[in-house]
């Protein structure tokens, strides 16, 4: 089943859309420089506070800034929309994918399947690892990202050896598999090389500024990722029903590269991150109201999963939510809603 603007019955003037799709290096560079500056400003306290209690708040703050934007920038570059200059886009794509912990070509192909078959069970390669509808245990699993770590680690090992699952082969042309294998070997060599040099030179900064922040910032990053489709309808072609946009403050919008406009992004993925607020305004009332802020929307999601785990009414009045029988595996029926 295909999911796009047409199957979602959304219309946009072609000229206006093309104007929004236009590329420029400037917004991406501005974001990149601001993000690196933010990492420097929040990273210095991390390095200065090692061995003290201040290290805990310092690394938590740095980790959130590190992990959410590494994911978001890698995602934007996977679409090729972060920068107009292609080599710049690809260079940033490699670095941020390494930070995010996924080989770039695999990231691009699996994400393509997510766009063609958004939230279609068995076709979208980026569905949650925990069963849907999410229980509290599933929420914990998704937020900790254990399934993702395990999956990506397996990919690094198997793809380095040239072993590809049927699922990977389903979304990747055969001619690309050798390139995927070579890329994975390069990624593994970079990880192992950095670890070896760090041990040899006695460096701790890769642990404090990359490894720990990826692990500690992972739950915040996963909370953003989970919000994109959780509790929305599965297995149907309308992106508006399967995807969530939400309001959030300027800082989270910055960290997340405006991906809170997630319905808009799925409808027109060629529109770069910096033009998404404009696209949202142009689509107007063809879109549902965005859900409330990041924290309040996620808090609702958490409450839903807890109530569901306790066998209580899992409906929310505050956020958009699919009817239970639009969620795979739900044993409730629509009358419960």
């Amino acid at each position, binding site marked *: 089943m295909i999911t796009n603007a047409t199957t979602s019955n959304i219309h946009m003037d072609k000229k206006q859309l093309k104007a929004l*799709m236009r590329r420029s290096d400037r917004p991406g560079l501005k974001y990149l420089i601001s993000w690196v500056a933010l990492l420097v400003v929040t990273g210095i306290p991390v390095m200065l506070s090692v061995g003290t209690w201040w290290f805990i708040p310092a690394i938590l703050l740095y980790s959130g800034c590190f992990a959410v934007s590494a994911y978001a920038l890698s995602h934007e570059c996977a679409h*090729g929309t972060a920068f107009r200059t*292609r080599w710049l886009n690809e260079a940033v794509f490699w670095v941020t994918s390494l930070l995010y912990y996924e080989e770039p*070509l695999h990231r691009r192909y699996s994400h393509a399947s997510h766009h*063609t078959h958004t939230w279609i069970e068995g076709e979208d390669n980026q569905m949650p690892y925990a069963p849907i509808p999410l229980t509290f245990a599933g929420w914990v699993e998704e937020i900790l990202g254990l399934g993702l770590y395990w999956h990506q680690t397996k990919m690094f090992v198997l793809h380095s050896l040239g072993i590809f699952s049927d699922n990977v082969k389903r979304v990747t*042309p055969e001619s*690309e598999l050798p390139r995927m294998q070579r890329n994975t070997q390069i990624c593994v060599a970079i990880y192992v090389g950095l670890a070896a040099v760090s041990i040899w030179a006695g460096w701790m900064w890769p642990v404090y500024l990359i490894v720990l922040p990826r692990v500690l910032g992972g739950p915040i990053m996963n909370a953003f990722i989970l919000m994109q489709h959780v509790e929305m309808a599965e297995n149907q072609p309308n992106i508006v029903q399967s995807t969530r946009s939400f309001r959030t403050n300027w800082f989270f919008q910055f960290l997340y590269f405006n991906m809170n406009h997630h319905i808009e992004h799925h409808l027109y993925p*060629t529109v770069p991150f910096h033009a998404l607020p404009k696209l949202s305004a142009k689509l107007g009332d063809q879109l549902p109201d965005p859900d409330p802020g990041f924290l309040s929307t996620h808090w609702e999601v958490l409450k839903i999963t807890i109530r569901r785990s306790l066998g209580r009414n899992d409906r929310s009045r505050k956020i958009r939510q699919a009817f239970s029988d639009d969620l795979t595996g739900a044993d409730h029926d629509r009358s419960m809603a």
Partner: protein
Amino acid sequence: MTAQWHDACATDDVDDEDLITLKLADQVVAIYNTPEGFFATAGMCTHEDESLDGGLVMDGVIECPLHQGRFCVRTGKALSAPAVENLVTYELQVRDGRVWVRV
């Protein structure tokens, strides 16, 4: 069937750095207007069944609207994943303000 020349559209029908798609001899054909001139390729992406009509033309490259696979509009060469298979290209001539394509 041998290829024939078709009067496809007026040059004004295609905006600068943009494309249109139309059906000629049962084929979906994309006609591009770039600073280097007009070009014609197949109008459907080779990655999946997506029309290039909503794509972005930039620096002589068409970017597919679905997954942003890229093709050279002059040669049809697939330039970046997820597009790996080249686009078919068609001969094109501009005569008296009309675009002719051999399909």
